[in-house]
C-alpha cells in the first residue's frame, strides 16, 4: 500500500511530543536548580512535598473539592438523564441539546457569577441573608472547598449527564419492560432493575468527572487563588508563576508527576468499569424506543421545577449576576440606589485594542487547532485501525494519554521545553505557535476517539475496493474515507473550535505577552488584577462573541452522537 509509511510517520510525529512532554515533566521533578544553570539532580523536591504539611493540606483540599464536584454533578445529572431518556416530558430533545451544550459554557464564567452571589464580603446572597437574620458573619462562602466544588460540579454536570444518557441508551429497554410486565411498578423497576444495571455506568461517569475535577484549574484559579485556597492545579501554577519568590520548576514537576500517576490510575479504573458496564449492554435485534414513563401532572411539575432549579443555578443566576456586575462601577446588591448607578462605562472602558488583538488570536487558534488536530488524528486512526503495522496498539495508547494527563501539566511542560530546551532552536516562547502546538496535542485523544468510532463502522472493503481499483492511499483518503467520515469530522471540528475558544487553563501558563493573548486570558487578567466589574463586562463580550459559533454547531455539528469528554 503506497502511502502507508507516510501515514505512520505523521502519526508518530503527532504522538512523539506527547511522550516527550511526559518525560519532561518527570525530568523536571529531579532538577535541583532553576533552568539555565548547570543541571544538578536531586530527589529533594519529592522528599519535600511528602514531608510538607502544606502538601497534605492541598491534597485534602483537592480531594474534598473533587468529591463535592462529583456529588453535585451526579445530583443533577442522574435525574436529568432519567427524565430525558425514560419519561414523556415534553421538549426532551431540546433539553438534551441545551444541557449538552452547557459543557461549552466557560467554567470561569460561572465561577465569576458565583463569586458575586456567594462571596463572603460582596456576595449578594450573603448580604441578603445577613440583613434578614441580622448575622454578623456570612453564612455561605464560595471561597471554600465545598463552595468551589459546588461551582465545579455545576460545570461538570453536563459531561456527567451526557455519559449517563449514553448508559441509559446502551441498556436494553426490554430489561425494564420485563420487570413492568411481571408486576413490578415504576418505582420498584427503578430500584431493582434500572439503578443496579446503570450503576457501573454511573460509577464510571463519576470517576471520569472526578479525574477532571482533580486537575481542574479554572474554578480554583478564579475563586481560590485570591483567597489562598489551593488545589493541586493552582498549587502547580503558583509554583511556576509565583507572586513573590522565584519559580520552582522542580516542585511543580514533582507535584505534576504525582498528579499524572493519580490521573492515569483513575483513567485505568474508568476503562475497567466501562468494560464491566458494557457487559450489561445487550444489543437487541430491534431498534425500538421504549414506551416512556408517563409523568402525571404532579410528576411533571416536579420535573419542571427540578429543571428550572438546575438551569437557574447552573446558567441563569451566574449570567444575571455578571450582567449586573458589568453595569456597575462597584459591585453591590441590587437596590434603587444601585440602579441609579447603572451604566455602560465598564464596556466603554474595556481595553478594546487588546480585546481585538485577543479576538484575532483566538480566531486563528479556532481555525488552526481543529484543522491540524483532525489532520493528525486521521493519520493516527488510520494507523491504529487499518495500517496493520506492528505496535499500532501503542499508537492508540499514546493517543489516549493527553486525555488522562492534566492539560495544565502539558502546558507547563511545553513552556519549559520552549523556554529552556528549544530557546535557541525555535522561538516558541510567548508565541501563538506554542498555543497551537499544545492545544492540538491536548485534543488528540478526543479527536482520535471520534474518528476511531466512525472509522470502525466503515467496512474496510470499501477502501480495499478502491485500492484494487488502483487508487493510492492519499486518493482513497480524499475520495472515500474523508467523505464517509465527514459528519464525524464536521462535528469534531466545531466542538474543538468551541473548546479552543473557551480555553483558559493552558492559556494561563502559555500566554506571556500581548503577542499571543487570547480572549479568556484577558478576562482572567482583569479579574486577577482586581477589576471584577470590568472582568464581568469583558466576560459578557466574550460570551456574546461565542454565540455565532454555537449556532454553527447547532446547524452543522449537532448529531445524535453526544460529545464525549471535554
Amino acid at each position, binding site marked *: 500500500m503506497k502511502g502507508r509509511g507516510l501515514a505512520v510517520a505523521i502519526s508518530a510525529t503527532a504522538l512523539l511530543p506527547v511522550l516527550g512532554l511526559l518525560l519532561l515533566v518527570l525530568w523536571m521533578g529531579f532538577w535541583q536548580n532553576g533552568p539555565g544553570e548547570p543541571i544538578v539532580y536531586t530527589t529533594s523536591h519529592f522528599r519535600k512535598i511528602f514531608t510538607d504539611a502544606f502538601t497534605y493540606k492541598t491534597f485534602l483540599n483537592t480531594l474534598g473539592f473533587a468529591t463535592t464536584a462529583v456529588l453535585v454533578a451526579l445530583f443533577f445529572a442522574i435525574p436529568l438523564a432519567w427524565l430525558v431518556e425514560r419519561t414523556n416530558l415534553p421538549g426532551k430533545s431540546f433539553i438534551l441539546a441545551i444541557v449538552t451544550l452547557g459543557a461549552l459554557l466557560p467554567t470561569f464564567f460561572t465561577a465569576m457569577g458565583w463569586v458575586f452571589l456567594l462571596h463572603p464580603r460582596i456576595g449578594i446572597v450573603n448580604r441578603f441573608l445577613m440583613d434578614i437574620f441580622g448575622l454578623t458573619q456570612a453564612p455561605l462562602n464560595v471561597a471554600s472547598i465545598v463552595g468551589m466544588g459546588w461551582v465545579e460540579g455545576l460545570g461538570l454536570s453536563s459531561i456527567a449527564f451526557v455519559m449517563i444518557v449514553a448508559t441509559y441508551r446502551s441498556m436494553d429497554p*426490554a430489561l425494564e419492560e420485563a420487570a413492568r410486565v411481571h408486576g*413490578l411498578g415504576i418505582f420498584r423497576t427503578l430500584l*431493582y*432493575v434500572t439503578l443496579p444495571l446503570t450503576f457501573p455506568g454511573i460509577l464510571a461517569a463519576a470517576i471520569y468527572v472526578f479525574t477532571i475535577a482533580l486537575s481542574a484549574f479554572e474554578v480554583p484559579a478564579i475563586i481560590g487563588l485570591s483567597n489562598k485556597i489551593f488545589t493541586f492545579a493552582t498549587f502547580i501554577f503558583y509554583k511556576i508563576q509565583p507572586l513573590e519568590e522565584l519559580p520552582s520548576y522542580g516542585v511543580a514537576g514533582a507535584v505534576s508527576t504525582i498528579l499524572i500517576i493519580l490521573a492515569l490510575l483513575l483513567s485505568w479504573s474508568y476503562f475497567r468499569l466501562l468494560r464491566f458496564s458494557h457487559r450489561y449492554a*445487550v444489543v437487541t435485534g430491534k431498534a425500538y424506543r421504549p*414506551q416512556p414513563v408517563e409523568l402525571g401532572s404532579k410528576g411533571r411539575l416536579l420535573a419542571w421545577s427540578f429543571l428550572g432549579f438546575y438551569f437557574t443555578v447552573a446558567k441563569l443566576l451566574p449570567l444575571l449576576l455578571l450582567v449586573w456586575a458589568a453595569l456597575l462601577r462597584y459591585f453591590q446588591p441590587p437596590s434603587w440606589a444601585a440602579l441609579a448607578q447603572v451604566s455602560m462605562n465598564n464596556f466603554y472602558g474595556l481595553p478594546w485594542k487588546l480585546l481585538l488583538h485577543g479576538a484575532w488570536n483566538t480566531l486563528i487558534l479556532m481555525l488552526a487547532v481543529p484543522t491540524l488536530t483532525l489532520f493528525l488524528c486521521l493519520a493516527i486512526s488510520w494507523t491504529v485501525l487499518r495500517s496493520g503495522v506492528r505496535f499500532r496498539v501503542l499508537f492508540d495508547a499514546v493517543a489516549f494519554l493527553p486525555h488522562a494527563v492534566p492539560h495544565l501539566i502539558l502546558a507547563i511542560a511545553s513552556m519549559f521545553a520552549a523556554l529552556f530546551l528549544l530557546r535557541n532552536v525555535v522561538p516558541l516562547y510567548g508565541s501563538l505557535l506554542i498555543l497551537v502546538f499544545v492545544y492540538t496535542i491536548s485534543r488528540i485523544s478526543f479527536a482520535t476517539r471520534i474518528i476511531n468510532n466512525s472509522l470502525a463502522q466503515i467496512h474496510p472493503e470499501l477502501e480495499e475496493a478502491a485500492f484494487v481499483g488502483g487508487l493510492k492511499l492519499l486518493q482513497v483518503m480524499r475520495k472515500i474515507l474523508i467523505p464517509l467520515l465527514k459528519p464525524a469530522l464536521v462535528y469534531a471540528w466545531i466542538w474543538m473550535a468551541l473548546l479552543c475558544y473557551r480555553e483558559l487553563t493552558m492559556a494561563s501558563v502559555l500566554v506571556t505577552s500581548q503577542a499571543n493573548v487570547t480572549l479568556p486570558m484577558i478576562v482572567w487578567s482583569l479579574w486577577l488584577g482586581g477589576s471584577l466589574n470590568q472582568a464581568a463586562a469583558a466576560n459578557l463580550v466574550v460570551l456574546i462573541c461565542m454565540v455565532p459559533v454555537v449556532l454553527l454547531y447547532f446547524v452543522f455539528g449537532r448529531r445524535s452522537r453526544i460529545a464525549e469528554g471535554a
Partner: protein
Amino acid sequence: MISIAGVSKNFSADDRSVAALRSVHLEVNRGEFFVLLGPSGSGKTTLLRAVAGLEKPDQGEISLDGKLVYSRSQGLCAPPEERQVGMVFQSYAIWPHLTVAENIGLVLTHGRLRLSKKEAAARIHHSLSLVQLQDFETRPARLLSGGQQQRVALARALAINPALVLMDEPLSNLDARLREEVRANIKKLAVQIGMTVLYVTHDQIEAMMLADQIAVMAHGEILQVGRPAELYRHPASALVAEFFGSINWIRGMAHGNNRVETELGPLWVADSRHCHGAVIVGVRPEDVHLQRSSNENENRIEGKVRNSVFLGDQIVCEIDVRGKILIAKGSPNDGEPSDTVFVYLPRERLVVFSDRVPSDSLG
C-alpha cells in the same frame, strides 16, 4: 380470554405518522395457542405489546379475562404490572446483574404476588424444573448461553401462574437445531399447563407447528384468522396464500360457473362463484401432478419439463405449459428435462381470487 376491538396505533417517525395498527379486532379463547404471523412491520409485535401494556394504543378497547385493561373512550390504560401476564421477550430480557433464581424470585417477591422468600423458593424450583434448569439456580444469569437464557425467560414468565403468556419471537435468536427443541418444549408446556398463549412470529413453519389458531397480519391489519390447515388450503387472499409458501399463479377470466378460461386453457375449479372477470388461479407446487399418460379428463394439459432439480426425497421441476412456467414438486422419478409430461391440476386444490395480486409475483 383476550378481546381486542378496534385497536389502532400510529407511530410518528421523522415527522411522518405511520399506522402500526389499523382498527384491529381479535378474540382469543382460553387455553388457545394463538399465533400472530406476519412479515416485519406488519404490526404483530405492536399488537402484542399493546396487550402487555407496553404500548398505549390510540383507539379501541382491550380486555383480558373479561376485565377491561385499555379503553380509549373511558380513558383507561392499566399499567403493565396490573395486567397479570407472563411475557417472553425476543432478547429474553434476563437481568444480567442477578442469578437465575433471583431473576424469577424478583418477580415473585416484588411483583403482584409479594410472596415471602420461602414461598418463592419453592415456586422458583418448580418453574425451573419445567424448563429443566433446576440445577442452575445460583448461576449468574449473564453466564448463561442463549438457549439457557431463553429457558429462564420462559420459567420467569410461567412462575406467577399467569392466565396468559405473551411471547415475542422467542425463538428468533436461537440456532436452527436448538430452535426445534425449544419449540417442541414450548408446545408441550402449553398443553401440559393449559395456558393461553399469544405468540408473535414471522416464520410460517413455526406458526403452523405451534398454533391452534393463526392470525395473519400485514400493514397493521389482520388478513385472516384460522387453523393452520385452513389457512394453507383456503387462504382468504392471494397475500395470505403467498405467505404460506410458494404458489403458481395462472391468469384467467371467470364467468361464475366454476370454469375459468386461463392462459393454460379452461380450468375447472371447486368454487369461483365469488369471482367475475379477471382472476388469478393459484396452485401450490406439490399439487401440480405430473403424469406420463393421460387418464383424467379435466384440468389436464400437456407440457414440457424445462429444468429439474433433484433434492433426494423429491424433485422440483419447471414445466413449460403453453409458454407459461409452472413449478411442480414431485417424486424423484417424475420428470427428466425435455420429457413431455401431462400436468394434472386437481380442481379441489385450486384457489381463485380476483386479479389484484402484487404484479411481481405473476412473473
